[in-house]
C-alpha cells in the first residue's frame, strides 16, 4: 500500500524545501547529505554495486527521454586512459518545464553530491553543469554552493584523503532551446553554436572535447544520493511498475497555484491538479500537455482518467517527458496556442537540417494563416503532410518536437481549425 500523499510530497529532490536556508550546505548535511559520497569513496565501493542499485531503483532519465540511468552509467568505457567528463543538463527551455530551476534554488548540494557520485562511478574527474541562460539568480546560487562544497573538501583533488578527485563547474547558457539536446549542449560547452551532432558516435565514446562523456538531467543526478542513502528497492517502491520513485511535476497555465510538486510516480492526474489548486477561475478543463510542449496534447476526459507515470501517459497517447504539465481551460483558443508553439520551434531550429529549418517555418506560416482567418481547408492536410515529412528526417528530435503539437492539436481539436477556416474567426473567443 502506498503511503499517504502528504507523507510523500517533496521527499527526494525537494527534501530541503521546507527547511530554513534550504540551499545551504548545513541544511543538506543535516539530512545526511554527502555521507553517501564519503562512504563510497573511503570504502572504495565497486562501481558495479552502485550501478546495480540504480538499476534496481528503476531511475529513468528525468530530462524527457526516460532512459534507465544505471544502464547509461554502465556505457562509459571502464579502462579508458585519459580524461572523461560528466555533464549535467540544467538547460531547461522546453515550454512548461521549470523543475530544475527549483532544484538549483532549493537543493543544489544534492545535485553536486549526485554528480560527484557519478564522477566516482564513471571515473570522470571533471564535471560541468550547463545552466539555462535566463535563470541568472539560480546560476549564482549554484556557484555559491560549489564554493561551499570546495571549501568543505567535498569537491576538488584527493577527496577524503583518497586519490579520487572531482572538480565541478557551472557553465551558463545564453538563450538557445536546442542546447537542451545533449550533443548540442556538448558543442555549446566547447564554445560553438549549439548544433546537434550526428549519432553515433554517442557521447559515451566521443563526447566533450572528443572524450567519453555522460550527460544526465539535473533531477536525475539529484535523485542519486537519495537512492543510495535509502536503497534502490525503497525508491522503486515509491513509484509504480516501470516508473520507479518520485517525479517533479511542473504545473503551469490555467491553474490556481502553478508550481512544482514532487510526488510518487503513478499519482492520478486529478490529484496533481488538486495540488495545483485546480483549474483556475472555476472553469472547466479543456486539455493538458502532460510532458512539455513537444509531447502530444491530451483532451480533458482522457487526462482526468490518467495516472502520472511513464506507461499510463503513453497509454493516454502522449509522453511523460520532463513532467511539464501545461493546463488549458475551456477558454483556450487551440489555434492560437498552436500558433505560438509553432513559432517557438521555427525560432529555435538550429538551421542545420533542411527538413527542420524549412519545415518549422512552413508549419508556422500555415498555422498563422489559419489564425489570421485566411486559412484554406486543404491547409489541414498540408500541415499533416509537412509534419510527417519532418519527423524522423533530422539529426536531432527538434523536428519531431515541432511536428508533434501540430499533429496532435489537429487530431483532437480539428473542428476549431475548420471553424477558423470557414468563418475567419475563433470558435472559442469569437
Amino acid at each position, binding site marked *: 500500500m502506498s503511503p499517504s500523499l502528504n507523507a510523500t510530497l517533496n521527499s527526494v529532490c525537494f527534501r530541503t524545501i521546507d527547511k530554513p536556508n534550504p540551499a545551504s550546505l548545513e541544511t543538506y548535511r543535516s539530512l545526511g547529505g554527502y555521507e553517501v559520497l564519503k562512504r563510497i569513496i573511503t570504502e572504495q565501493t565497486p562501481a558495479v554495486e552502485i550501478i546495480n542499485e540504480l538499476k534496481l531503483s528503476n531511475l529513468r532519465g528525468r530530462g524527457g527521454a526516460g532512459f534507465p540511468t544505471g544502464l547509461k552509467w554502465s556505457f562509459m568505457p571502464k579502462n579508458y586512459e585519459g580524461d572523461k567528463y560528466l555533464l549535467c543538463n540544467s538547460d531547461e527551455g522546453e*515550454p512548461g518545464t521549470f523543475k530544475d530551476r527549483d532544484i538549483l534554488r532549493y537543493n543544489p548540494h544534492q545535485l553536486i553530491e549526485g554528480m560527484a557520485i557519478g564522477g566516482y562511478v564513471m571515473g570522470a574527474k571533471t564535471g560541468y553543469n550547463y545552466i539555462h541562460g535566463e535563470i541568472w539568480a539560480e546560476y549564482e546560487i549554484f556557484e555559491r554552493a560549489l564554493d561551499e562544497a570546495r571549501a568543505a573538501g567535498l569537491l576538488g583533488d584527493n577527496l577524503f584523503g583518497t586519490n579520487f578527485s572531482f572538480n565541478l563547474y557551472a*557553465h551558463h547558457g545564453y538563450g538557445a*532551446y536546442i542546447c537542451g539536446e545533449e550533443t548540442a549542449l556538448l558543442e555549446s560547452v566547447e564554445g560553438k*553554436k549549439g548544433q546537434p551532432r550526428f549519432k553515433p558516435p554517442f557521447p559515451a565514446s566521443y563526447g566533450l572535447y572528443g572524450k567519453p562523456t555522460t550527460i544526465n538531467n539535473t533531477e536525475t543526478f539529484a535523485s542519486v544520493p537519495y537512492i543510495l542513502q535509502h536503497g534502490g528497492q525503497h525508491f522503486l517502491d515509491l513509484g509504480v511498475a516501470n516508473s520507479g520513485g518520485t517525479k517533479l511535476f511542473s504545473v503551469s497555465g*490555467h491553474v490556481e497555484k*502553478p508550481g512544482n510538486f514532487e510526488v510518487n510516480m503513478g499519482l492520478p492526474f486529478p490529484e496533481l491538479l488538486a495540488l495545483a489548486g485546480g483549474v483556475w477561475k472555476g472553469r472547466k478543463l479543456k486539455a493538458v500537455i502532460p510532458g512539455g510542449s513537444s509531447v502530444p496534447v491530451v483532451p480533458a476526459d482522457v487526462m482526468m482518467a490518467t495516472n502520472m507515470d511513464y506507461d499510463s501517459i503513453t497509454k493516454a497517447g502522449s509522453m511523460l517527458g520532463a513532467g511539464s504539465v501545461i493546463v488549458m481551460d475551456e477558454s483556450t483558443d487551440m489555434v*492560437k496556442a498552436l500558433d505560438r508553439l509553432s513559432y517557438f520551434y521555427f525560432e529555435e531550429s538550429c538551421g542545420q537540417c533542411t527538413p527542420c529549418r524549412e519545415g518549422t517555418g512552413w508549419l508556422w506560416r500555415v498555422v498563422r494563416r489559419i489564425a489570421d482567418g485566411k486559412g484554406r481547408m486543404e491547409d489541414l492536410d498540408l500541415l499533416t503532410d509537412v509534419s510527417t515529412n519532418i519527423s524522423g528526417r533530422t539529426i536531432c528530435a527538434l523536428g519531431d518536437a515541432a511536428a508533434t503539437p501540430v499533429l496532435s492539436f489537429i487530431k483532437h481539436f480539428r473542428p476549431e481549425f475548420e471553424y477558423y477556416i470557414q468563418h475567419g474567426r475563433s470558435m472559442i473567443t469569437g
Partner: protein
Amino acid sequence: MLSAESIAKIDRELAKYPANQRRSAVMSSLAIVQDEHGWLSKESISDVAAYLGIPDIAVLEVASFYNMYELKPTGKYKLTVCTNISCMLRDAHGIVEHLEHRLGIHCGETTADGKFTLKEGECMGACGSAPLLLVNNKDMREFLTNEKVDEMLEGLK
C-alpha cells in the same frame, strides 16, 4: 579594448576549462562584455576573439546564434517578455500590450530617450511564475500584473 574588470572576470571563467580549450569561455566572455557595454560591437567581438585566441568569425557565430546577445545597441534597460505557451495562457500578451502602451513603442523597438528596449522572448524556464520578464538578461520579474509593471518602470531610473 577589454577592460581590466572584464579580463579579470573572463579569467575566472577560463579557469573552469582545460588550458587548451579557451574557446569554451566564449559564451561567458561575450556575456561579461555585453554586461559592460550593453551590446556587442564588432570591436568587442574582435577583442574577445583576440583574448581567447580564436578567429573573429568563431565568436560572431556564437554571438549571433544565442538569443540573449545583442548585436545592436539597446536601451539602458532591455525588457524581454516571455510570451511562450504557459505565459501566454496567463495573458503575457496583455503585459506586452501594457508595456507597448506605457513606453510608446512596439516590441523590437527602443524608446527615443534610449532608456527602454522591449522584446518578446522564448521560454525562460520559469513557467510557474508566469507572466514574467527579464530586465537586462539577469533580473527576472515574475507573477506580473499591469500594476507590478508600472511599479517596475518607476524603479528603473
